């Protein structure tokens, strides 16, 4: 099994190698090519994805053909369409922005693993809390924040994505036009750039 996922858990909870082995038996590693679509809308996927290496994104396409990015998932992020948990069809596409290696996490992985290793339960609750907190903040930002505020929040959350994804994807995530994003970056440069 991949060490990245083990290390991720070890940073969050006290788990021994033996305990990890006891829960990781049915976890599989999968590799995706750059630009590969790994989940389509309408799919009912039996697993989510833990990113060991690379970068995934979840997005929808509206009736005019425009993409809206819900989430980026670089290393150590989890990404899934939660509809699948209720055995309902995905409403998001997930694709690989870079060549990516993931752990496929069965939808019931946390529940099952927590039976064997009880300290996974509070961790799972914390993760869910964080995820909801993240979504609440994101909704609030989309409703009320300026383009600059959204961008500043984005670079705090994802400091290296400005080097890894094209501008239009960042704009799509922020719910602004690429032109607005350029303007924000230009204004920041005007404020902060000191030629020496």
């Amino acid at each position, binding site marked *: 099994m991949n060490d990245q996922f083990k290390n991720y858990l070890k940073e969050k909870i006290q788990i021994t190698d033996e305990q990890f082995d006891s829960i990781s038996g049915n976890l599989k590693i999968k590799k995706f090519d750059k630009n590969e679509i790994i989940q389509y809308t309408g799919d009912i996927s039996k697993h989510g994805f833990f990113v060991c290496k690379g970068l995934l994104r979840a997005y929808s396409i509206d009736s005019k053909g425009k993409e809206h990015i819900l989430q980026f998932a670089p290393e150590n992020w989890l990404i899934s369409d939660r509809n699948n948990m209720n055995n309902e069809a995905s409403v998001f596409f997930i694709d690989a922005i870079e060549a990516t290696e993931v752990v496929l996490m069965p939808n019931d992985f946390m529940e099952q693993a927590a039976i064997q290793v009880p300290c996974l339960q509070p961790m799972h609750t914390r993760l869910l809390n964080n995820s909801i907190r993240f979504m609440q903040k994101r909704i609030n930002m989309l409703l009320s924040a300026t383009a600059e505020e959204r961008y500043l929040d984005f*670079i705090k959350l994802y*400091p*290296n994505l400005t*080097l890894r994804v094209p501008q239009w994807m960042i704009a799509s995530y922020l719910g602004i036009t690429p032109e607005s994003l*350029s303007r924000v*970056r230009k204004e*920041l*440069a005007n404020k*902060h750039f000191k030629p020496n």
Partner: protein
Amino acid sequence: METKQVSAVLKSPAPHMVGDGFRVHNFFPGGYTINMSPFFLLDYGSKIQFSARRIPRGVGIHPHRGFETVTIAYHGAVAHHDSSGNSGVIYPGDVQWMTAAAGILHKEYHEENYSLRGGPFQMVQLWVNLPAKDKMGKPGYQAIKQQAMAFVNLPDNGGKIEIIAGNYKGQNGNAQTFTPIHLYNVRLNKQGKANFSFPANYNTGFMVIEGAVKINQKEIAPVDSFVHFKNQGEQIDVEALEDSIILVLSGEPIDEPVVQYGPFLMNTQEEINQALEDYNQGRFGYIEE
């Protein structure tokens, strides 16, 4: 004086694209693990034909910090713009020595007229590390035209050596460097001979751009190969088996820790995080797409 022995003659690793304009073989640090400090990276764009295009191919705006990019053109032409206000075109034989230091944004594209015609394209890009004390210095730009380069003619119509940086037999190259570096374009006629002397501890390599050469009367290095030398001995002999061009690199190693992330080359992870923060906050400046 002892002979500097060849450590390996390395073939081009599989190429990858940088943007859509540069198809490069990364000899190091990706392709091979070899001691080449102060040279951190060698991307070799072997000769290929690009079809004509109205919108030039290239690589869009990106930042650099903590080192220098040195671009050496052999075929085709590259246009450059950066956030320090410098721009220029690198034609075959020319060299662009860009010191990113504290930070620069730039973009590199096929030059318009070349793009409209298409044709052969061949170049080298080196990343030259900077010592810690100069990493946050002022960005700089040296455009070194082939006509202005110092050179030495080789005996017996053997060819000539263009000195980009450092010195050769008393002639000094134009480029200003932060640590001791010798960088030459060696243009040999068939059977032309040249010899070099570099301190034993200098990391040294030859990129064979054209033709084929025999090194120290023994090893044969064909076109598109990189010859890596051991850190013992000083003297190197070269003989051209056909008309040849080699790029000679030799430099005093910078004995400091190196942390690379993408386009940043620093000494610590904290400095990398700072570079990301500064880039995101616009402290590298702004240039239009």
